[in-house]
C-alpha cells in the first residue's frame, strides 16, 4: 500500500488514497465515474480527458486513443490511430501508454549541467561530435561512453516535451488528431461545456478573458488528473506482488524473468529496469528513459511512408526540430515501459509489429536472420534497417545482446525461451487478482 500512499502524496492533496477505484469496469469508456479522491482541479481534468466535444471532429477525446481499458494505450491493433476534423487523418506514430509516466525525467543529454538556484548558467549538453555512434552509448561499452552523451527523458517517442501539460498540447492541436486550429478554438469549445463554470470558480471569473491563462489551466487540469488518479499508476501487477512477497511466479514466469535479466540472453533488463530504487521511492519503471536506435522495419500501414523520401527519425525529426542536424541522434527513440506491454497489440514507435512473439523474434533474429525482417534488394542483398536512410544505419545498436550476433549465428533465445519471456511479461499487467485499476 506504500505506493498508493506515494501517489496520493504526489496528488498533493494530503488525503491518502487507500483504495484503487474498485468498480471501474473493462468496457471501452468505463470511467465517466468520478473518483472522489481527486482534487477539484484534477476532476476538471478528468472531464476534459473524456470529452469528445473538444475535438474538431466531435468524435475524439483523449480517451479515444489512450483507452483506460487498455492501460491508457491504443484500443486496437491499428499501427496508428485515425483523427483530424473528419477523422480521415492518421497520427504519425503508435499511441504510447499514459501509464507510469509520473517519474519520467525531463529531457536531457548526458550528465545534467543544471546548478540548482544559481545564477551561474549551467553548461548545456553538447551533442556528440559527428561520427560518434549512438551504438557507443550501449550498455556494455565503457562507462565514459555510456554516460557521456546519452539522451534521456522527455515525453512522446522523441522526448520533445517535458511536462504533461506540454504533452497534452500536442494532440489537441495536431491536425491529424483532435485538430483544434488554435488554443482559442479549443477554449471556445471548452467554454460551452458543462464544466466551464468549474473553471471560472477555480481559476477566476475572468479566466476565459485571458486565453493564455485559460489554456494553461486546462492543460494543467488534464495533467493533474494523470498525476492524481491511481489508474495511471496502480502498481498492482503480479510482478509487484511478487516483489512484495505476496505472490510467487510460476516456473515458466521465473524462467522468463531469468532470461529477461541475463545479460547474455534476453538482456532486456539492461534498458527495461526491473528493480526498485534502493530507497523504494521508485518502483521498477521497466524503462531507463533513455534513447536507442533499434532499426525497426518500415511500416507501410503509415500513409506518410508511401513517400520513399519520408523517414521518421525520432530524436532528429521530423516532429522534433532541435536535433535535426545531429546525425548521430537520427533514428533514436525513447525506450517505453514494459508494464502492461502484454495488453498491447501494436509495438514500437511505428507500430510495425502486432504481437509480442514477433517483437521478441525480431530482437533475437534481427542480426542472425535479417532476411526475415527486411526487404531484399534487386541483387538479392538484404536492406537492413530499411526505415532509416543509409547514413543513419550505423546508429543502430549492434553492441548489446541480443543484437551482438552475426548473420547465421544462433539467436540468443529460442522459441520456447521467447514464450517464457512473454509469460514473464504478462506478470507486468496491472489488475492482478482482479482489482482493475
Amino acid at each position, binding site marked *: 500500500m506504500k505506493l498508493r500512499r*506515494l501517489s496520493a502524496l*504526489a496528488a*498533493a492533496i494530503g488525503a491518502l488514497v487507500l483504495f484503487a477505484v474498485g468498480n471501474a469496469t473493462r468496457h471501452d469508456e468505463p470511467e465517466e465515474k468520478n473518483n472522489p479522491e481527486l*482534487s477539484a482541479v484534477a476532476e476538471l481534468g478528468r472531464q476534459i480527458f473524456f470529452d469528445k466535444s473538444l475535438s474538431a471532429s466531435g468524435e475524439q477525446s483523449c480517451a479515444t486513443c489512450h483507452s483506460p481499458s487498455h492501460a491508457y494505450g491504443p484500443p486496437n491493433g491499428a499501427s496508428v490511430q485515425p483523427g483530424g476534423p473528419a477523422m480521415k487523418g492518421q497520427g504519425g506514430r503508435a499511441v504510447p501508454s499514459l501509464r507510469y509516466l509520473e517519474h519520467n525525467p525531463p529531457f536531457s543529454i548526458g550528465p545534467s549541467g543544471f546548478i540548482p*538556484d544559481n*545564477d551561474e548558467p549551467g553548461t548545456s549538453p553538447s551533442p556528440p561530435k559527428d561520427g560518434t555512434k549512438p551504438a557507443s552509448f550501449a550498455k556494455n561499452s565503457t562507462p565514459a561512453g555510456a554516460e557521456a552523451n546519452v539522451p534521456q527523458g522527455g515525453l512522446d517517442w522523441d522526448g520533445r516535451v517535458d511536462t504533461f501539460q506540454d504533452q497534452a498540447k500536442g494532440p489537441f492541436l495536431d491536425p491529424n488528431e483532435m485538430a483544434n486550429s488554435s488554443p482559442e478554438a479549443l477554449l471556445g469549445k471548452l467554454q460551452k461545456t458543462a464544466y466551464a463554470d468549474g473553471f471560472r470558480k477555480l481559476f477566476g471569473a475572468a479566466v476565459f478573458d485571458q486565453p493564455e491563462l485559460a489554456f494553461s489551466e486546462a492543460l494543467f487540469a488534464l*495533467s493533474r488528473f494523470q498525476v492524481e488518479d491511481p489508474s495511471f499508476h496502480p502498481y498492482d501487477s503480479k510482478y509487484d506482488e511478487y516483489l512484495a512477497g505476496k505472490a510467487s511466479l510460476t516456473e515458466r514466469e521465473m524462467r522468463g524473468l531469468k532470461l529477461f535479466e541475463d545479460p547474455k540472453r534476453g538482456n532486456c533488463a539492461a534498458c527495461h529496469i526491473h528493480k526498485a530504487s534502493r*530507497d523504494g521511492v521508485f518502483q521498477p519503471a521497466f524503462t531507463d528513459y533513455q534513447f536507442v536506435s533499434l532499426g525497426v522495419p518500415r511500416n507501410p500501414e503509415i500513409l506518410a511512408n508511401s513517400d520513399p523520401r519520408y523517414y521518421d527519425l525520432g530524436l532528429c525529426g521530423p516532429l522534433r526540430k532541435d536535433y535535426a542536424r545531429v546525425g548521430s541522434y537520427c533514428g533514436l527513440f525513447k525506450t517505453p515501459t514494459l508494464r502492461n506491454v502484454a495488453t498491447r497489440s501494436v509495438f514500437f514507435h511505428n507500430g510495425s509489429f502486432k504481437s509480442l512473439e514477433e517483437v521478441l523474434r525480431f530482437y533475437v533474429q534481427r542480426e542472425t536472420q535479417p532476411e526475415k525482417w527486411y526487404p531484399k534488394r534487386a541483387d538479392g542483398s538484404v536492406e537492413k534497417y530499411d526505415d532509416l536512410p543509409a547514413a543513419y544505419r550505423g546508429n543502430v545498436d549492434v553492441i548489446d545482446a541480443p543484437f551482438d550476433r552475426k548473420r547465421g549465428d544462433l539467436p540468443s533465445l529460442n522459441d520456447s525461451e521467447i514464450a517464457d519471456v512473454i509469460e514473464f511479461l504478462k506478470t507486468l499487467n496491472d489488475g492482478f487478482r482482479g482489482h482493475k485499476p
Partner: protein
Amino acid sequence: MKLLKRPFLLTAAAAITGAVAWGTVDLTLTAQNVSETATPIKHVVVIFGENVSFDHYFGAYPKALNPIGQPRFMAKQATPAVNGLTEELLKNNPNFTNPVNAAGATNPFRLDRTQAFTADQSHGYQAEQQAFNNGAMDMFPRYTGNTGAVPGPGPFHTKGLVMGYYDGNTVTALWNYAQNFALSDNSFGTTFGPSTPGAINLISGQTNGGVRSGGEGEVRPSTALDDGFGGLTIIGDPDPSDDACSTTRSPNFMLTGRNIGDLLNEKKVSWGWFQGGFDLTVTNPNGTTGCARTSYSPIVGSYVKDYMPHHEPFQYYRSTANPKHVRPKSVVSIGTSDDAGANHQYDINDFYAAVSSGNFPAVSFLKALGIQDGHPGLSDPLDEQTFITTVLNFLQKSPEWKSTAVILAYDDSDGWYDHAARIVNSSYAALDLLSGSATCDAPAALPGVAGKPVNGRCGHGPRLPLLVVSPYAKPNFVDHTPTDQTSIIRFIEDNWLGGQRIGNGSFDERAGVINNMFDFSGPTNSVLLLDTNTGLPLK
C-alpha cells in the same frame, strides 16, 4: 548522540516530535537562560526560507478560495488587513496593462494547492530592478517571469506565471501562524539579488568585501561587481571558497567583513547555523552520502540536493566557516566555541538533538534540506510547510518555548510579483537599471568595508514575508513598521549585545526594529500545533 547520526527525514521528524525525552537538565541554569537579555526572549530561532515575495504568499490574506477537498482557511473576525492585492491590482494590474510584457501580460492569479510545484522565476540583481521599473512595479513578466518549462513543471505557459499567488489553501500553516501570532507586511529584502546576498545580509548586512578564491573561470559582474573602488560586491550566487561541497566549475568567494557570529562569539553567546545536509557522514535511504546527499519529495517528483553551499552565509567568512563540515564533539558543545572545530556550523539534526538535550542555543539559524526549503523548481510550499510545522511543533512542546521567538524570514523573492517597493540605498554600476541607465537612485549610500560608498547594494529589494511566532508575539497582528532582513540581526544585537552594531557600512545600523511585533508585557499561552501535511490546527 543517537540523533546526531540520524538523517532527518519526514518519518524521523515525526519520531522526534512525537516522543522527545527532555531529560533532566535543569533548564533554569543553562548558560543561555541566565545570560542577560534586553527582553524576555532567551532563544531566537530564525527559519530562513527560500524565494517568496510577500504578495506570492500573503497578497490574498486573509481570504482563501476554499475549493472542496483542500485544507480550509477561514479568517478570524478581527483579522487586520494587510497591504496586499487590492481589487484594482487583481483586475487592472499594471503588469496586465503594460504592453512590454507581451504574452506574459497577466493579472495576478491564484495558484491552486495542486500547483504547489512551479518553475523557478528569475531573481537576478539586475532583473529584479528592471521588473520594478523605477517603482511602477509593472514589468515582472518581462524581466523576472519564467515559463513553466524545465526545470520543473508549472501551471502556466507564459512568463505571466510570475503573477501567481497562493492562498491559505496552500500556505495554510503560514496563514494560521499569522492568525495567532505577528505578521509584517512591510519587510523587504535588504538588497536586490538572489539567495547568497540575502543570506549574507541576514547575518552581516554587508555584501561588499568579496574576495575571489578558488573555482574556475572569470568572475562575471552578475556574480560580483566592481564596487567602484577596486573591491567586489557579491550580487550573485557564488559558492563559498573551500567548502567541501562547493562547485569548482565557477568562481568561489569569501568575504572580508564581520558578521553577527563574530559579535556573539566575543560575548560568548551561544549560537549556530543548522542546515539540512551539512553532516557529510550521513547516508540517506537512497544511498547518497557526503555532499551528494539527496532527498525525494513526491510533490517535486525528483531527488534534490540536501545541502547547497551558497545558502550557508557563515561559510563565506574565515572566522565562522567550517569548510570541512567538521562535526561537533558532543551535543553539549553545540553552540559553543568549544565544539571541536565545527565552529557553530551544524546539521539541522544537531538542532533537534541540542534542544532535546536541554542545550538550546541563544541564537539559531535554520535552513531546511533543499527539498524542503521552498525554493521553486527544487522545492515547493507544501514541503516547506512540512519543515516549518515540524520545527514549530517541536519547539512549542519544549519547556523553553516560554522564552523563545521564532522568526520566519526569506532570502529573496524568487522574482515573484509584489506590488510594494522601498528603495533606501543607491548604486551606480552598469547592472543597476532601477531608475535609469546605471542608476539605482536612493536617499543614501552606505559605505562598503573600506569605508566609502560602494556599488552593488541597491536596495531594498522585493518585499518578503516576515512572521514572529512566540508567546510574546502579538496575536493576529499585522505590523507595518518598515523593516528588512537586517532587522533580525538588529534584534539580536539589541537583545544580547547591548545594541552593539556590526558597523562598517552594515545595514543593521539603519534597520527598522521588529519590536512592534512583540508584546513583552507578558507571554500569551498561545500554542498552535499544526498538521505537517495540511497546515491545519491539530485537534
